[in-house]
């Protein structure tokens, strides 16, 4: 299995994401923002950071990067796509996920180990977890407050598309404590906290994040098998 990790100018966590892919047992493939194709990868990760300086709005300019056309096509075709932090913002700006990420309610950049509850195990990126499993994963963002109109939020909840919720304190004022959401098909997931930073106790608070990456492998094995 080959999982592509896109590097935009200003991406920070592409190397950690590639490392997580390797830990999970897949081959990470470096994708560049200017690429016009996905080099045959089976899944794609948009990593954290500050793509294109986050000018205008987080993810707003990255959304129009050449590689995003292929990413959008792959996402619509059912390929697993995970957006982490800035990647989540890019997916929302690209309308591959509903809603938007806005300035933290308290205006502070929030950097801490965050407890989450996995609320949907039906996605390509969370099937390795147990329903309502609590995990500890770092969050580090200034614009992580998830917002959508009430009808969209109701729809997400009714369809089980809220992938993870903050537990033990909402770090940014996200509506309904939402930390991550999925698209209708469950192959595209956006998550504000950073699972790639929680795959080894030497470098993170837990190994709880690894499940996101092993989930994609499990999903791909199921699809091809």
């Amino acid at each position, binding site marked *: 299995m080959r999982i592509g990790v896109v590097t935009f100018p200003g991406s920070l966590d592409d190397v950690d994401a590639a490392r997580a892919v390797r830990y999970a047992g897949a081959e990470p493939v470096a994708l560049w923002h200017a690429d016009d194709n996905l080099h045959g990868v089976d899944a794609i990760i948009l990593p954290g950071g500050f793509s294109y300086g986050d000018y205008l709005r987080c993810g*707003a300019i990255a959304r129009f990067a050449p590689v995003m056309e292929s990413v959008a096509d792959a996402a619509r075709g059912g390929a697993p796509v995970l957006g982490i932090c800035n990647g989540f913002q890019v997916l929302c*700006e690209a309308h591959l996920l*509903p809603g938007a990420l*806005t300035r*933290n309610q308290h*205006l502070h950049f929030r950097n801490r180990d965050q407890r989450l509850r996995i609320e949907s195990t039906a996605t390509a990126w969370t099937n390795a977890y147990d329903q309502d499993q609590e995990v500890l994963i770092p969050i580090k963002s200034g614009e992580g407050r998830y917002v959508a109109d009430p009808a969209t939020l109701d729809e997400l909840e009714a369809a089980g598309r809220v992938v993870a919720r903050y537990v033990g304190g909402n770090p940014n004022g996200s509506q309904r404590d939402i930390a991550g959401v999925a698209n209708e098909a469950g192959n595209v997931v956006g998550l504000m906290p950073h699972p790639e930073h929680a795959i080894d106790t030497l470098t993170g608070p837990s190994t709880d994040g690894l499940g996101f990456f092993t989930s994609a492998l499990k999903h791909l094995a199921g699809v091809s098998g």
Partner: protein
Amino acid sequence: MARVVVDVMLKPEILDPQGQAVADALPRLGVTGVTSVRIGRRIELEFEGTPELATVNELADRLLANPVIEDYAVTMPPETEAA
């Protein structure tokens, strides 16, 4: 040359913590009675010729604003006609 202005504002129902922080600071200047502060963004675009309003609207809709959380207004200030 024509200047087009795009004003972008968070939708009324979207929380504006920046505006709130400014509102909270106003009493330090001795000003009371301000009930709300909302912060937006003004974007000025200069075109070689006269742009199609539809083109500018599309730019605003696709990039300059995020219609999920923001409203925008496109205007052509009259002074640019004379300049």
